[in-house]
């Protein structure tokens, strides 16, 4: 075959495919996918029908943070499982709907979290309850651009509650600065001189706690920070840091750690080094059953924490009616038979309760209305919340929960601490 004919053959084939392609491209997608949504006021958003509403969660269900991550799904699944069993939730528009949860694993990888968001955004009504700062940050701007709610997520990063930066997002748990400040205020208002040693996780979590603490003790002459160290979340041990801190002679130990075994080993190591300060622990690593008992926390003059929810591993928890309901819902609807070692299970349950409040106020099945109603909740005491705290979403810059109580370990569980010491 001559070259010319060969070339003509090739060109014909390509041209033929090109024509077919153009015809097919004619049915290229148009309409309102991607970019901004252009729904009219009465068109329903994706993920909601007259009988069902679907929520999406992207959270770590494998890897190092899978313990708390699994809890972020379990609590909300348990709450809505119970509600569904009762027939569903009556929305503000009169329809009763059951709630479906679609959870995906992102392994604490921001790239996978963004991918999960892309997968879910067309089929869920709203995204909620996910764990982690970098993972949520990776699709925050995409959620804003696509106008998909990223609400009541489990991270204390302030950016999510800033309506200017994140008009479609809202955090649930108090920002880290808040928790650190609460303890700082307690300390600052105490009498007597105190020397403080600090050990913080080397990321925005630890930095936030320390920042809040430092702001709260600014100007208090009786408080002095004598040593400040960090550790990596991937460290096997923090013995070296403990040794350094013990040598500082501090009588208060401000601890911003989120890794359970490291907190336990710190409690043990400090005792070995004969260093017995008062401790401050963050809300997510202060469980009496899982951390304080194995660590032998009773040896210290005081172990403090901040909380807005009851601790599921305290002995009194299972005896209370709310607590017992929570545990049984967890076992029955979320396939989670153990007593949770992480507070995220309770928090996720409370997220469910808060969402129920929003659903009951919604008059239109749209994401816009959802966000409007979301920001109108005030003074809602969710189940298992401590007295003195409540959900309030009306203040710009604050997450859904911003009131915390400082508590002190009493050998079995926690009790509110009025003063330090």
């Amino acid at each position, binding site marked *: 075959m001559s070259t010319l004919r060969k070339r003509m053959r090739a060109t014909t084939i390509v041209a033929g495919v090109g024509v077919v392609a153009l015809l097919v491209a004619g049915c290229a997608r148009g309409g309102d996918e991607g970019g901004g949504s252009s729904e009219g006021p009465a068109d329903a958003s994706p993920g909601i029908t007259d009988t069902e509403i679907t929520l999406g969660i992207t959270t770590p269900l494998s890897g190092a943070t899978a313990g708390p991550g699994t809890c972020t799904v379990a609590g909300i699944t348990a709450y809505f499982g119970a509600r569904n069993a009762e027939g569903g939730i009556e929305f503000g528009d009169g329809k009763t709907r059951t709630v479906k949860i679609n959870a995906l694993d992102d392994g604490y990888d921001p790239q996978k979290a963004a991918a999960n968001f892309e997968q879910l955004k067309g089929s869920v009504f709203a995204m909620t309850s996910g764990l982690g700062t970098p993972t949520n940050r990776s699709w925050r*701007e995409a959620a804003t651009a696509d106008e998909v709610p990223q609400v009541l997520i489990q991270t204390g990063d302030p950016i999510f509650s800033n309506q200017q930066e994140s008009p479609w997002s809202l955090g649930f748990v108090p920002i880290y600065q808040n928790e650190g400040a609460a303890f700082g205020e307690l300390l600052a208002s105490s009498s007597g001189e105190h020397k403080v040693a600090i050990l913080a996780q080397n990321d925005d979590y630890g930095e936030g706690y320390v920042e809040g603490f430092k702001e709260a003790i600014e100007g208090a002459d009786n408080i002095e920070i004598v040593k400040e160290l960090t550790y990596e979340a991937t460290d096997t041990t923090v013995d070296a840091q403990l040794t350094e801190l013990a040598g500082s002679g501090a009588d208060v130990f401000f601890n911003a750690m989120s890794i359970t075994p490291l907190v336990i080993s710190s409690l043990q190591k400090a005792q070995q080094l004969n260093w017995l300060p008062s401790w401050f622990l963050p809300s997510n690593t202060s469980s009496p059953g899982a951390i304080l008992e194995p660590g032998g926390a009773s040896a210290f003059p005081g172990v403090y924490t901040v909380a807005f929810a009851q601790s599921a591993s305290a002995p009194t928890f299972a005896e209370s009616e709310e607590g017992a309901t929570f545990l049984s819902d967890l076992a029955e609807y979320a396939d989670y038979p153990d007593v949770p070692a992480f507070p995220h299970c309770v928090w996720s349950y409370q997220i469910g309760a808060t969402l129920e409040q929003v659903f009951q106020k919604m008059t239109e099945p749209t994401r816009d209305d959802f966000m409007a109603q979301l920001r109108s909740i005030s003074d809602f005491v969710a189940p298992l919340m401590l007295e003195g705290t409540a959900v309030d979403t009306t203040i710009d810059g604050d997450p859904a929960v911003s009131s915390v109580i400082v508590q002190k370990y009493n050998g079995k569980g926690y009790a509110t601490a009025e003063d330090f010491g």
Partner: protein
Amino acid sequence: MSAATAFFSRTWVRWAVVGVIAVVLIVLPLIFDAPTNSTLARIGVFAVAVLGLNVVMGYTGQVSLGQIFFLGLGAYVTAYGVNEGWNIVLVFILAILLPAVVGLLVALAAARLGGLAIAMVTIALPIVGVPLAKRLSEFTGGSQGTSARFSSAPEWTGLYDDQWQLYVVIAIPAAVFVLTRNLVRGKFGRAFAIVKENEAVASSMGISPYRYKVLAFTIASAIGGVAGFLYMVVIQYTSPETLAFHHSITLLASMVIGGAASILGSLIGGAYYVLVPQLTNIIDPNLTAVLQGAILLLVLFILPGGIVSLPRLWRRSRGGRGLGSPVAAGAQTTGIATIEGTRASHAGDYASPVGSAPAVPPVTGPESGPTDKSPSPESPEKRQDT
């Protein structure tokens, strides 16, 4: 040769195939929905990353467990440049240049020391990189990461964002793949192959193993930087998490599963990296780890040479004249298990004391039996290049 092979080796057919693929690549993003386009774009990003790993590990036989570091570095450079408002072309060039320079420096130091040193240094890169990224928070945004939204579709194209991003991620990797293919098919590729087989032989032929290792490593780092730039195009956010060590391990697994020393294998590897987590999520989000491990083991069990060796397996099972025995199918490297050093063929310095020398130059020969651990000489043509 079979009829199919004869058909495809005609020039006009090859051009027609290229033309068809080009048309398909232009049209598909317009048809697919946003999640699919975004998935395809991500596959492109990691296919490039795996390609870079292949250059240094598959083709040249040097262990690199730090490829994700170069991707992360490229992503951070891109994010910084975009947020500072620099010209995007400049940012792209920097995203290639900086990782290449770092790779060059690392290779210059480590390549003289043998395979273990290179392995260790490459492990060190992401492991030290993560706390370093956290420390240099003015440039990197610290542990919260930085966002850089710059890949929205320009007005004049009338495209959706995800379509525009996919086109970028088709165009740039296509160029990279073509360039790399020409590289490994040319004299550099042959030099890499000889360095991989046996360094003593290479230097006796006048090919400096040191120089080519450094070259391969630098190219791999540059390609990693491109992948980082593309990562920012698609994900538009980066954090220290991006260059975590375990991603390097997954890249290695993707390279092997796709097919080492194979251009097409890199593409398959990228697809593996992106699709398997999504697939396991669909099956059961609570069992992603079990399923991912099981899938990996299953694929390697059936296809030890990677997915790219599937046609060979298929051909052999149909009774055609296959190329090589099952054990060596797709395994283009010599398989010497050693005591010192993890990889004789890669380290070059370490080899079985009783091992036999490969023939010089390597020739096509019958495979030694499955019980033999001695190196199997294979001709360069057996390497899977497409």
